[in-house]
Each structure stands twice: as C-alpha cells, then as structure tokens.
C-alpha cells in the first residue's frame, strides 16, 4: 500500500524534499510509517519526540491505522502568531 507524505517547515530541509510516497505494509499504523521515514531520512530521527503527525487535516496518534489514499503530514511544533 502506498501513502503520500508531506513535510512542512524545516522537516523539508531535514529530508531534502517536500513530499514523498512511501510503500507500507497493509494495516501499518502511523507509528510504523514514522519509523520507516526516520530510517529513510535519518535527520528526521533527531526530531522524533517533537514530530507532529496528521492524516488529512486532523492530528492522529501513532496507533492510527493507515488506509489507502491517506495523506500524511509530518511537521515540527507549530508557531503561529
């Protein structure tokens, strides 16, 4: 199964890309996807604990089970204002 992943803010610099497509096993959860992404982009691992994870326009926790077509976003703590 494939999911599209978008990085925001300096996560784009950490990964060197704004968007990527990641192949995951069926019924993988968001935590597993995060691990896979940190393996592929080691600099992401430096932000492991403060990474925010969203699917579509909602935050999700690591145990969220991914579905075909999910649009995942990874980003650092937000800083509006």
């Amino acid at each position, binding site marked *: 199964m494939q999911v599209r992943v978008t990085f925001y*803010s300096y996560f784009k610099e950490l990964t060197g890309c704004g968007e990527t497509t990641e192949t995951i096993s069926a019924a993988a959860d968001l935590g597993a996807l995060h691990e896979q992404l940190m393996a592929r982009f080691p600099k992401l691992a430096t932000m492991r604990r403060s990474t925010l994870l969203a699917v579509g326009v909602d935050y999700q926790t690591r145990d969220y089970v991914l579905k075909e077509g999910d649009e995942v*976003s990874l980003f650092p703590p*937000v*800083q*509006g*204002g």
Partner: protein
Amino acid sequence: MKRELILTSEPINEASLIARRTMSGGMGAVVNFLGVVRGSEDGKTISAIKYEAFDKMVRHQFHLLFDEMEKRWPIESVRLVHRVGVVKVNEPSLWVEIVAPHRGEAFAACQWLIDGMKRIVPIWKKPVA
C-alpha cells in the same frame, strides 16, 4: 457565533477590519489583539519572518477551536486574520477580534484562542536575516 478566518499574504488592514465590524445590542465588549513581528528572534536581529502554513489544515484546526470557543463562551463573533509569506519587522502578522456580551469572556476567549492556535494550528515561522 459569526466566524471569519482570513489567511493572506497581503498586509493586515486594521482600519478596514474595524470598519466592517457588526455587533448586536446585547454586546458590551470587543477585544482586539494584534501580533506584530519583533526586530529580534532568539536574540538575533531579523528583518522579517516568513510564515508557512498548511493551509487546509490551518482552516480546519481554527474551526475546531472556534467550535470549542462557542461551547465555552457566549461569543457573538470571532474574526481572525493571519499573514502567510514574508512579514516585515513592525508589521502585524496576526489580528484577532472577539465580540461578546461582557469583557471577562471576551478576554478569556481571545487568549484561549491564541494559546490554542500556538498549540495546534500548523503555521511555522522562519526568521529572515
């Protein structure tokens, strides 16, 4: 509760926002907040801040905050404008307005909304030297 949310790369025009304000007879309090880009960030002099927003999620998360505000306080109107892109030092990046019957709830809601924004709304800052 009336809601207005604007994400814009144009300068915030306070005067025109204020001129467009409407409030009914039962309302006694208006709180406005203006957030302005300061000349230094983490001790370094900067000339501007570049704001990046995950637009669609920004809108959704703000509306979740508005939903919650509406449950907590008897607010008649919330309006919020946030700049995206480059905002120069001394220019406003954020404008918020709450209209409510009394000042207590207007102040509480305004501060709660800004705190909520800084917790969950996906906007990021990058200082420009």
